[in-house]
């Protein structure tokens, strides 16, 4: 079997207990929620901690609740729960789609939204066994000094690969980070950094405890499109989440947001798009033309590199296609 490094496991029962364990700094510690990413990283020796703190028993992290249209999601809520939740289907359809597109049924059964939001960046030169990486000569992100994606690159450009982040970003989600030193709430976008090695601002002593999706406007629609080889299991080679706000009376677009993932370390929000589509009625040719325009604008802002499998040029060609399809699907789905 594949071997994991020897480590201890702590299974705290409460949040304060968990935070106290994280505050102790003598043991190199990793947090484990569902463990579906962490265990693979351990088997590949991408992580070699001395202790793993499991959130499995920590109470109070597994709620999905609505308050005046706003959705609060505990960090340990599983993707299976989210994917099946009627609240999510109603209030944040793109999030539900994204959650259902992750991995496989067995993985979604234990994979958490917190773990998905904090998923490490991925790269074809990094997500490999120790033997393979050693044969390669390692890379900047772990144990090495070179980047194999960008020749001479000094910065890791591994790809954000979580499916739910783009959907959450279009919804304006906020995250709550807690440590013994206090609580921080920040927009999800600010959780991420454009650095493949340290892609979040989460501190080692902090836990992500909750995500909040603010109340959306009436007429809100969303969709998530994912490029992958198979219809299950595969990580995104490109992920596109869209939010369309539509005036319920006139059926014209009042606001739009498009976020892409699997490009660089940080999910990417497409800029300067309002003028292309706001004010356009969602039914009819004008909308289709606007969606196509928007897709092209997205493509101009996206520059896939050879970090994840698949030809980067192809991924770039697919940006406008996926963006347009996501918009059309969002518009069609009332």
């Amino acid at each position, binding site marked *: 079997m594949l071997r994991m490094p020897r480590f201890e496991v702590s299974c705290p029962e409460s949040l304060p207990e968990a935070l106290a364990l994280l505050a102790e700094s003598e043991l190199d510690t990793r947090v484990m929620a569902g463990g579906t990413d962490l265990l693979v990283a351990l088997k590949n020796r991408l992580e070699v901690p001395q202790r793993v703190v499991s959130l499995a028993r920590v109470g109070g992290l597994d709620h999905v609740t609505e308050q005046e249209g706003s959705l609060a999601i505990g960090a340990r809520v599983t993707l299976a729960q989210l994917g099946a939740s009627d609240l999510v289907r109603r209030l944040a359809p793109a999030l539900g789609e994204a959650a259902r597109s992750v991995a496989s049924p067995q993985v979604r059964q234990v994979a958490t939204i917190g773990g998905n939001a904090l998923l490490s960046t991925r790269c074809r030169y990094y997500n490999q066994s120790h033997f393979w990486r050693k044969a390669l000569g390692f890379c900047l992100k772990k144990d090495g000094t070179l980047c194999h994606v960008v020749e001479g690159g000094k910065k890791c450009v591994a790809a954000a690969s979580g499916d739910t982040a783009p959907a959450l970003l279009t919804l304006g989600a906020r995250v709550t980070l807690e440590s013994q030193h206090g609580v921080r709430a920040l927009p999800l976008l600010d959780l991420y950094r454009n650095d493949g090695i340290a892609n979040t601002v989460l501190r080692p002593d902090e836990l992500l405890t909750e995500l909040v999706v603010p109340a959306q406007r009436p007429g809100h629609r969303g969709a998530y499109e994912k490029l992958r*080889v198979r219809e299950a299991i595969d990580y995104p080679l490109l992920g596109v989440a869209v939010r369309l706000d539509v005036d319920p009376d006139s059926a014209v677009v009042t606001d739009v947001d498009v976020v892409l993932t699997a490009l660089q370390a940080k999910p990417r929000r497409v800029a300067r798009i309002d003028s292309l589509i706001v004010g356009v009625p969602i039914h009819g040719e004008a909308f289709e033309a606007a969606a196509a325009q928007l897709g092209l604008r997205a493509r101009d802002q996206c520059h896939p590199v050879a970090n994840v499998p698949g030809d980067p040029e192809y991924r770039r060609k697919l940006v406008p296609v996926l963006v347009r399809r996501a918009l059309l699907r969002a518009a069609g789905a009332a």
Partner: protein
Amino acid sequence: MAARDRHGSGPPFGDVFKVVGTSARKVDGMAKATGEAVFTDDITLPGMLHAKTLRSPHAHARIVAIDTTRAAALPGVRAVITGRDLPGRFGVLPWTQDETALALEKVRFVGEPVAAVAAVDEDTAIDALELIRIEYELLTPHFDPLDALRDDAAPIHDTRERNVSKNVLLEFGDVNAEFARADVVIDEHYSFHGTTHAAIEPHCALARLGADGVLTLYSSTQITHYVQRTVAKVLELPEHLVRVIQPCVGGGFGGKSDPFSLELCVCKLACITGRPVKMLYDREEVFYTHRGRHPMQMHFRTAATREGKLLALDARTVLDGGAYSSFGLVTTYYSGQLLAGPYALDALRFDSTRVFTNKPPCGPKRGHGAVQPRFAFEVQLDELATRLDLDPIELRRRGALPAYTETLNGQRITSNGLLACLTAVERASEWRVRRGRLPFGVGLGVAASMYISGTNYPVYPNEMPQAGIVLEANRSGLVTVLTGSNDIGQGASTIVRMLVAEELGLALDQVRVVAADTDLCPVDLGAYSSRVTFMVGNAAIDACRKLRAKLTSALAAHWETFEGDIVLSEGEAFDRKEPTRRLSLKEAIAIAEAKYDTLATAGSYNTPKLGGAYRGGTIGASPSYSFTAHVAEVRVDDETGRITCEHLYVAHDCGRALNPMLVAGQMDGSAYMGAAEALMEDHDVDERGLHRGPSLLDYPIPTALDVPGLSSLIVESIDPEGPYGAKEAGEGPLHPAVPAIANAVYDAVGVRLRHLPFTPARVLAELEQQRAALEGRRARC
């Protein structure tokens, strides 16, 4: 030799089969459904050690020095071995034995085994590997076969011609003359990429040296007999002291048809330590072990008349063999020999060159050697049909070889259900009303093929039977069948049980099959080249006929009647003329045992003399051939380039379907595997020789959501020499899937795909070129 008897294709008693033709359950179905079935890694022996392999990080390098002292000194380590401990060369074919269990002087691909450690547990073994120091001197690696053929290329082995593993040039008829008189010639280049078996069970081996000096090896192999020979040779032991047992195998597809490093290492380590030693490959190691489909670059030219009569095929092929020979000699022949059918040709020439490269070795994968040229030729036929404005099914019909004929390279064809296969897929797909008339983006494509049902060429030349069976009828009412054949999930043991039950009139549970244990079972060559049903089936019938003669003659004496009137059926024996004379088979066996002593018989099978009278003429010669036709229905997304194979209509002539449910399972499994090769799988290394993704994540095999709808249409041609008329079903149904998809894409969007795999990126690029060409044409108008 009894082996060459024709047993006839009818039922043994009366006009109806009792067992044959039913979808009887498998011998091990419930054991597998309850988790009770034992696979190699499920076995633990007392005092067992765990072994691990150290692998080369370099694609091509000379080993300058190996220092294992620190590893050997690690507490818990029981033995460390390197190439020097197992220097004997081996390889599945006796002519090309270029492998050693662990690299000797050189490493030839990333992932090649270099050293092995046995320790008290896997953790310790892994830690010990880290302590082995190896000094390498790097050599130039070659990943492109054309590059490896250059005069200044670094030699990977000592070969007569630089890096040529095998070259075959054969010509039948006068190819140049046929091309000279042709009305049309299609001349194109095609390429097939590498793919691998990816059986879900990783390779595992466990060895134990008994106090009696017998070395027992449990292994997830398809070829117990060859493994036994190889272990004896490399460990320099007498063959009779090596016992190889194959527990349940979790899929093979040709990927477990070579003797492998791990088998030899655990044997050696068990001998050194005196303790049982197990080695289980992790998934990454399985990718390095490979032996998968050879990438091929093919330049094919087909000559035909205006009416679509095929005149000649001229094929030039370069096979990328990877680092070792494996079955490569045979692959090289198969790449041309099997093109002589299923269509009549007046001339055929092929020039195939297998080249060594610094990659995991290629070998036999389901449809060995013939899937790649079949792709090229069937696409070429589609191009011909387009050029001649002929229906592609009609073109194939016109060209089809008849039954009972000989191909121009001397292969004897017996039963032939090709036309029935073409008709079946034509009807099921509603070809006549749909093809060419579907909306843009949706299309139908056809392809057909033939494949061997075993080969008359054992991998080491000998005059002995290729399959043997021993039967013992016990007074308990049980008949035990001993067969060396390997049931790797395809149902070999189930078929043997059904045949014995039919022949002896037994209930299924009165037949017990003991298989694949070299101490107990007569030799069978193994589960490869689709030989098992045909050869082992015939051997079983042969053994049964002898046993049956004893049973019926004892009963005839007992009832004072004629032998010919005795019927054995459904657990009973009776006199056809006097049906009140009736005994259970248990009682019948007791009567026969009293008369003839302990009841045991042996049966065997050997092929008749087959094949052309030229060097290599027996390679590809089979006692019978199976035939297949596919129609693929695809949907092409012209914005993403993604091809969805919506449906595969698969018609396969398997002779007689001894168990139609199992035949259908083989057809489904083959067809889906072919479709996956076309659309998503790609086994390759990068510019450093590193595998592009040695995992089931990065080497995607289809999930239940990624498979086409499958309609398996069983065509029964009833072969004169197969057991009750049966032929193979495990490999043939794969071949047409790939070209049928390519041809369907042409129907759907007008793009001709000649290079595999059909990734969305490639298809999109082709569509863009097509669009640009159209616009260019429009602009010129």
